């Protein structure tokens, strides 16, 4: 099992070299050679026009269970309130379910969750609701057990969840117990109707490359999606069923104990909820210069954001960090000051409605996603904007 080059077919054209994300291919004596470290992703095989690259893998013998049907969305609730990402996933899920001509269900755990009918408004045909005081807080052991049990009982073919701190923590556990595939942080979900497969696309290598992934034979096909990647879309006049599930306390035990929750109160305006965000990067040069952005933000009623370097250097708390290891945000207006636009940052904000970039490097990648770009010194431009906005 592995990868090899058929020397009879290989012409040494070198088309396979660039696509290899690990840079492992060299042409030696006019034939391609693959060095150690190949993880069989197949990018080179795609690129080869001569079918000279062979990837041998054990044939998957597991039969696809035809009894797996339906798309599920795990709808997360906190303190009795559903989250926006739940609706975002249901909106996309509705489109996927229509393509597959199957039903869309929401699964919800908690206690006294309000407005559960909203899940139906956003697309769910059914809502499986397990309501119990034990589930009021995010007891991950209980959630893992309960979701696994429900999946085993009802056999959905696809399960989606928000890539929130809860989602990224317990969904993989469910996938491992079910021995099925899970793809994290998907930015696109499509259906291959012929093979009834969910095509899961996500950034890899810090967003430099996109990869499309499938879970071929195991079920359910599971994927998590970051908040604000899909847009929520309420549909008029929808009807559906809310099915109350009895929580079997004896059946599921929690090994870990949640003792306390301490809220982070430093963030006055949560950046995830802000309509306008003024954000700073390495170009600010020092911590004190966030002051300039704070003044602009104050005049605009905006929240303050940051790329990763200022957070790493301690200039601003982590709760303001936008990007792959920070928060994904999608405000109406995002103003990036002194931010170069590294892929990890773009991953966190590029779906914002309007993006303004201020940077004195005309080649900064941020200009590629900006709606309006100002090539200039932020120390001149930002105060200018603040002054003008104050003036009127």
């Amino acid at each position, binding site marked *: 099992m592995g990868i090899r080059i058929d020397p009879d077919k290989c012409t040494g054209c070198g088309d396979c070299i660039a696509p290899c994300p690990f840079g492992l291919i060299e042409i030696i004596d006019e034939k391609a050679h693959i060095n150690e470290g190949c993880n069989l992703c197949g990018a080179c095989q795609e690129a080869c026009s001569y079918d000279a690259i062979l990837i041998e893998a*054990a044939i998957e013998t597991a039969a696809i269970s035809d009894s797996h049907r339906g798309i599920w969305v795990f709808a997360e609730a906190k303190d009795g309130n559903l989250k926006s990402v739940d609706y975002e996933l249901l909106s996309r899920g509705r489109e996927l379910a229509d393509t597959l001509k199957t039903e869309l269900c929401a699964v919800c755990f908690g206690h006294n969750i309000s407005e559960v009918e909203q899940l139906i408004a956003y697309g769910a045909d059914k809502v499986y609701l397990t309501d119990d005081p034990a589930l009021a807080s995010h007891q991950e052991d209980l959630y893992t057990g309960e979701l696994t049990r429900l999946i085993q009982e009802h056999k959905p073919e696809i399960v989606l969840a928000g890539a929130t701190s809860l989602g990224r923590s317990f969904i*993989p556990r469910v*996938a*491992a117990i079910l021995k099925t595939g*899970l*793809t994290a942080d998907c930015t696109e979900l499509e259906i291959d109707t012929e093979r009834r497969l969910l095509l899961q696309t996500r950034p*890899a290598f810090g967003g430099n490359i996109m990869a499309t992934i499938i879970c071929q034979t195991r079920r359910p096909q599971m994927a998590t999606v970051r908040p604000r990647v899909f847009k929520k879309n309420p549909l008029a006049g929808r009807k559906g069923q809310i099915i109350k599930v009895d929580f079997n306390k004896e059946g599921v035990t929690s090994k870990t104990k949640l003792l306390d929750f301490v809220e982070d109160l430093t963030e006055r305006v949560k950046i995830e909820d802000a309509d306008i965000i003024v954000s700073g990067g390495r170009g600010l040069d020092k911590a004190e210069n966030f002051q300039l952005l704070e003044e602009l933000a104050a005049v605009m009623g905006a929240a303050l954001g940051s790329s990763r370097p200022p957070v790493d250097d301690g200039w601003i708390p982590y709760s303001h960090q936008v990007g792959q290891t920070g928060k994904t945000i999608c405000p109406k207006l995002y103003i990036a000051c002194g931010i170069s636009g590294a892929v990890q940052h773009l991953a966190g904000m590029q779906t914002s409605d309007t993006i303004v970039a201020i940077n004195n490097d005309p080649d900064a990648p941020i200009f590629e996603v900006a709606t309006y770009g100002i090539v200039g010194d932020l120390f001149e431009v930002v105060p*200018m904007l603040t002054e003008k906005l104050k003036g009127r």
Partner: protein
Amino acid sequence: MNIVVCLKQVPGTTQVKIDPQTNTLVRQGIKNIVNPFDTYALEEGARIKERYGGKVTAISMGPPQAEEVLREALSTGADQAILLSDSAFAGSDTLATSYTLARAINKIREYDLVICGRQTIDGDTAQVGPELAEMLEIPFVAYVSQIAEIDNGYMRVQRMVEDGHEVIETPLPAVITVVKEINVPRLPSLRGLAKAKSAVIPTWTAKELGVDKNMVGLSGSATRVIKIFFPQRVYRGEILQGSLENQAESLINKLREAKLI
């Protein structure tokens, strides 16, 4: 406390750039590094050992060159290191990786805590930690930002969530993933470097781990990559012109027109 730390060797991806003309990867000899989040895991393991006594074992699944990260680990707190390497492991997704790591940890037998970094910078899935916990059938806590206390077979930790942190108590053994807020990894010591240089790092192959070959590598992977492509990046906006003063004025007008401010 017997601690196992999982490390992964990854390409130093921040050095990977795209050539805008050809839309292909520009490779300036991608250097391999230890996954940065794993250095925090190793450091925490070393600190727990210093506080409570015990041993830190570093393990890594990868090709033979992954031995480098294990040697580095020996100079910064690990007492012993084991490489899990076999061509059968190639092509593993997180499920197959977790299975293989679990086989190794079960072979190590005596362990109280398994520490992983929050996620890798190449895969970014953050899945191996939780999946590993299920393979080992032990409790799991993600995003640990502080280990408050270990006492009598229980551990109390603080872990980060979106809007604050939770205090969680878990019985041991358990698997945790850590975030970078948890500590500042130490630099190697001279004695550590000397020890690492001369240390023997055993390699455990598929046979030694007694793996089920349908559970490892490509066969053991539930997911597979079917396509890799480069995101299309197009300039979709306008770069304003004129003096900075005019540009600022113009921007404000445009934003007002769009009713954004």
